[in-house]
């Protein structure tokens, strides 16, 4: 990261991400999770450029931090969702590709959904093979429509199963994206 991109007295990437967690690895994960959540939020609002909008939210939030503002919300994600609502209200649209250039330093990795279907299949298959048996069987039961029976057997509420499956899928997608990046695939 180059400090001059945010002006002379800017915070570094790790200093900025520290708002999410004091542990740098956890902070990075929470940052990426926030980006994914913001992207979904804009999809739910039927926006055609949800990833650009999510980046705009992050850019605004981090710019305010650079200006010395403090986040008072207990969970920083709440602060960014407040900005996201404003972005929707404003009807924000990405005008120029270079408009987002100044947040390249904080740009989250490209999403699993940017991979083409054949790549998704290959990388997912590799990552599925590494899932613990219990998680694999849970996912399989869920996809086969046997989730309810599986939850009863495991003593889980259906909502809890759904959340566990969602987290496994998110993890799989992150792993598959990482493998895609590791294989030298140039992401869009």
């Amino acid at each position: 990261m180059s400090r001059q991109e945010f002006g002379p007295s800017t915070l570094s990437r790790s200093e900025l991400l520290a708002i999410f967690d004091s542990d740098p690895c956890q902070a990075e994960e929470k940052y990426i999770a926030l980006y994914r959540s913001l992207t979904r939020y804009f999809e739910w609002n039927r926006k055609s450029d949800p990833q650009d909008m999510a980046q705009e939210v992050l850019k605004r939030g981090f710019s305010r931090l650079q200006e010395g503002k403090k986040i008072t919300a207990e969970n920083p994600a709440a602060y960014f969702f407040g900005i996201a609502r404003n972005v929707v209200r404003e009807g924000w649209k990405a005008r120029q590709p270079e408009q987002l250039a100044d947040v390249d330093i904080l740009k989250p990795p490209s999403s699993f959904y940017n991979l083409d279907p054949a790549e998704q299949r290959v990388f997912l298959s590799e990552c599925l093979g590494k899932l613990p048996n219990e998680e694999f069987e849970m996912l399989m039961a869920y996809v086969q429509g046997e989730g309810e029976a599986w939850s009863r057997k495991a003593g889980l509420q259906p909502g809890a199963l759904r959340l566990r499956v969602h987290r496994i899928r998110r993890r799989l997608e992150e792993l598959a994206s990482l493998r895609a990046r590791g294989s030298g695939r140039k992401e869009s």
Partner: protein
Amino acid sequence: MVEGEQDRVATLDPDAQIIRYLLDEMEPEERSLLEERFSQEPSLVEQVSSIEDDLIMKYACSRLEESLVPRFEEVYLQTPARRARVDSARILRQALDAAASAKEQQHPRPVLRLRWGFALAFAAAMIFLVAGLLPLWKSTPSRPITTSGDNQQIAFVLEPGRVRSDSGVQITVPGTTREVQLKLMWPSSTANENYRVILGTPERPGIWSGATVHKDAGVVATVPANVLTAGDYTLKLQIARAGAHWEDVANYYFRVAKPIASGK
């Protein structure tokens, strides 16, 4: 939002409320109230995401409640980002099938403990067997390519045809069957295309419709057995085109014969 409206929203089933949000069926005020909660409790976003994944997976596996399908298709198949999620759910399902088969081959387990792995490996083996015997099928009533042990799920292969007489096959659906998987041979299909089927009879052209899953040289439609009473059926395969348009690509004809009494 007025107090009465807040009370009304608070008493609704949260899952149903979130589904209405995802399917764009909320009034602006109700929607705004829910979105306001995202900035108060960010964990709600994860809950909504998990319900969205569930909705999409049910659609991709043809298990989505029929009343939700038209609205789902209207909302989810029209924006590229949401459509990508639908495609990815299909891909995950295919990848899971493949991984289950691979696991089964690497670590065969005792017969009584086999569940999904066995079913999938068996299904794959039967598909290859059927592919080899395909030329013989035309002259005989179609036999299922797979059946679950209790006949709850049964699968057949259908080939496209221009008229009923050149491609129609006869299938028998046991009374205990819950789902009939119809593998529609359509070699030009690819995993990143969206297909759906419309099932009809000469008297009722649209008795059921549902999404398909890409598989090998075709697509698979899972039809609830209770819609398949004895009679002649046409299954119309359609592909999603730009601008919310579905284009007919093939027809499949079959006859459901009355099941032979088992004597049980």
